[in-house]
């Protein structure tokens, strides 16, 4: 079964598509988690870096790990792959404890921590051979296979020192896939890539997910997580603030609905009359500036998505012609503010 992820292409608002997608995703949060993190804490020196981190990643899902720089994302990821020992708590990968049985647990994971750093004095192929020797059951045919998956065939026998960042990224993914892992951990995978590279990476991640692989992707950009992930854990100051479906979290934080019509005054009046609608004045909202740039003079509101068709009908009945209705995600800061205000800490 292939699952459609409308959340990635969300431009128009179609509630039906959402519930469908929600069902599709709900299926995935069943069974034994591939990655199970419970009560994770880390103290460095006298300072607690990670206070409380809990989340589960289920088979076949794309799980986002969202937080600003310095929130403890990378420290957490390093604990997942045994680079840092947790002070407290447990990490299970495929049911194996990372701290007690690192060999078994790490055999289930492919990862890139921060940048894809390879031996620059070796060729791409020699690098993969290095990693293949550290895994069981990886032969030349498998190396050739992952090379073709990441489409590096042409330059695989050149020194990595001559590769562009995008190629290193792909080689990093090839390396991560080598051992046929159940879980792929990518730390800020789009960092430093150009827009074309980011788009390719997104498509690639989707393709990998369709093969049944679970992905764990960290980012400091909400939009990126929205485009790629099914579920997300939001981390700030070493604490997971919230775990849930991406669309739910965004809704919860109140995404904005922008109305662009030929009568701004009238639109404002009609919408203000509805109890369920909250209108915002200039400066009261926090959203990506580019969204408003496309919709000059739009009225900014928050409203439940189910009410939108009804409101459109009302506006049309009043003789207002609608140019666009668009939902815009709040910024990450807005989301954090909402989450902490709602007492979800």
């Amino acid at each position, binding site marked *: 079964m292939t699952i459609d992820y409308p959340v990635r292409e969300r431009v128009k608002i179609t509630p039906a598509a959402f519930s469908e997608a929600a069902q599709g995703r709900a299926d995935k949060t069943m069974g034994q988690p591939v990655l199970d993190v419970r009560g994770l804490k880390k103290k*460095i020196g006298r300072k607690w870096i990670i206070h409380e981190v809990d989340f589960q990643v289920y088979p076949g899902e794309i799980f986002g790990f969202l937080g600003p720089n310095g929130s403890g994302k990378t420290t957490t990821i*390093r604990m997942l*792959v*045994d*680079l*840092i*020992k947790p002070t407290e708590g447990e990490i299970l990968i495929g049911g194996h404890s990372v701290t007690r049985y*690192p*060999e*078994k*647990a*790490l*055999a289930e*994971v492919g*990862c890139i*921590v*921060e*940048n894809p*750093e*390879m*031996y*620059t*004095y*070796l060729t791409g192929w*020699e690098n993969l051979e*290095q*990693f293949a*020797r*550290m*895994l*069981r059951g990886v032969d030349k045919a498998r190396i050739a296979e992952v090379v073709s998956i990441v489409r590096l065939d042409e330059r695989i026998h050149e020194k990595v020192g001559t590769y562009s960042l995008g190629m290193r990224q792909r080689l990093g993914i090839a*390396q991560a896939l080598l*051992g046929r892992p159940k879980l792929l951990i990518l730390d800020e995978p789009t960092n430093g890539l150009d827009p074309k590279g980011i788009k390719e990476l997104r498509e690639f991640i989707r393709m990998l997910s369709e093969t049944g692989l679970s992905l764990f992707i960290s980012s400091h950009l909400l939009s990126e997580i929205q485009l790629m992930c099914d579920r997300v854990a939001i981390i700030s100051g070493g604490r997971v603030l919230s775990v849930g479906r991406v669309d739910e979290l965004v809704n919860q934080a109140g995404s904005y609905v922008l109305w662009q019509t030929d009568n701004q005054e009238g639109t404002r009046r009609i919408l203000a009359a509805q109890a369920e609608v909250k209108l915002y004045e200039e400066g009261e909202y926090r959203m990506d500036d580019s969204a408003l740039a496309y919709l000059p003079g739009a009225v900014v509101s928050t409203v439940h998505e189910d009410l939108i068709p009804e409101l459109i009908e009302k506006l049309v009945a009043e003789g207002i012609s609608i140019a666009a209705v668009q939902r815009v995600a709040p910024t990450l800061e807005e989301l954090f503010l909402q989450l902490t205000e709602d007492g979800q800490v």
Partner: protein
Amino acid sequence: MMDILPLIQNETLKIWKKKRFYVILLILLVLIPLFTYAQMRMAQTNADNFKDWRNQIQQQITDLQNTLASDRMPEEWKKYDRIKVQQLQYYLDHDVNPNSPDAATFTRQFMASSVSLFFPLLILALASDLVSGERTSGTIKMLLTRPVKRWKILFSKLIALTLYVSLAIITTGAVCYLVSGLVFGYGGWTMPVFTGFVINSGSIDVSGVHPVPQWQFVIMQSGLIWVSCMTIAILALMVSVLLRSTAASIVTMMAAVISGSILAGMASSWETAKYIFSVNIDLTDYLEGTPPPIAGMDIVFSLSVLGVWMLGALIVSFGVFTKQDILN
């Protein structure tokens, strides 16, 4: 144990591909012809001045005795010279030329004088970035996120290092012999060399002295050089585990080695210095019968000191490497 072989292959390949060994080979190919030329000039001068090598040794003994008669020379230094005189006399009495100009003798002498500084330098070129280099480049993250226990990774690095240390010693010997042979001829392996001098408080005990053929002497000497070099290599590996920067780890080890050779020259009155590893590095001196830098040191003592340092360094290296958090 079978699964550790691919890891050793990895580490061996990495050192090779980093072209570290080429650097060593290059240094040898530049330096050894230089020393060979210097040796050749010396041999020519001697040949001009002395018809017979015996006259030359006799002259050397007379010179040393003259300086010994001088009052301005400190008593400690006189001790060395007296022993030197006794040794030269011994060679003269047994009609053996200690400085015979041939490739085997040149190789033996070059290797022996390289043990305190030149070999450590070569070893540091190999060992200093084994772990710190992976940290600098960030590849340590790739290395340690494999389903392999950390001690196995460090162990494979240690084995690869041991292989290259051995190879470096053999290569130095081979290059020495091949290059100097062009000038001095490839003979001299069967020439007798005296060993077994026992130093007793300023005088020399020759009762245990016996001749060994030079080839045997070179093998014994190489064994001792290997022990010295492995001590340096293991300490360098430890420093490389402890320090994140390769430059810092090379400087630290060089400082330790050089301070050792300086201390050896001035520490005769500071007895505790004999427990410092770098004071004990010159193991080949015991074979030749050169007096130790500090009274009371002998070959068993030095081997034990080096052994303890190696063991300590291994414990620290493995302890830290298997437990440390990789934070950057």
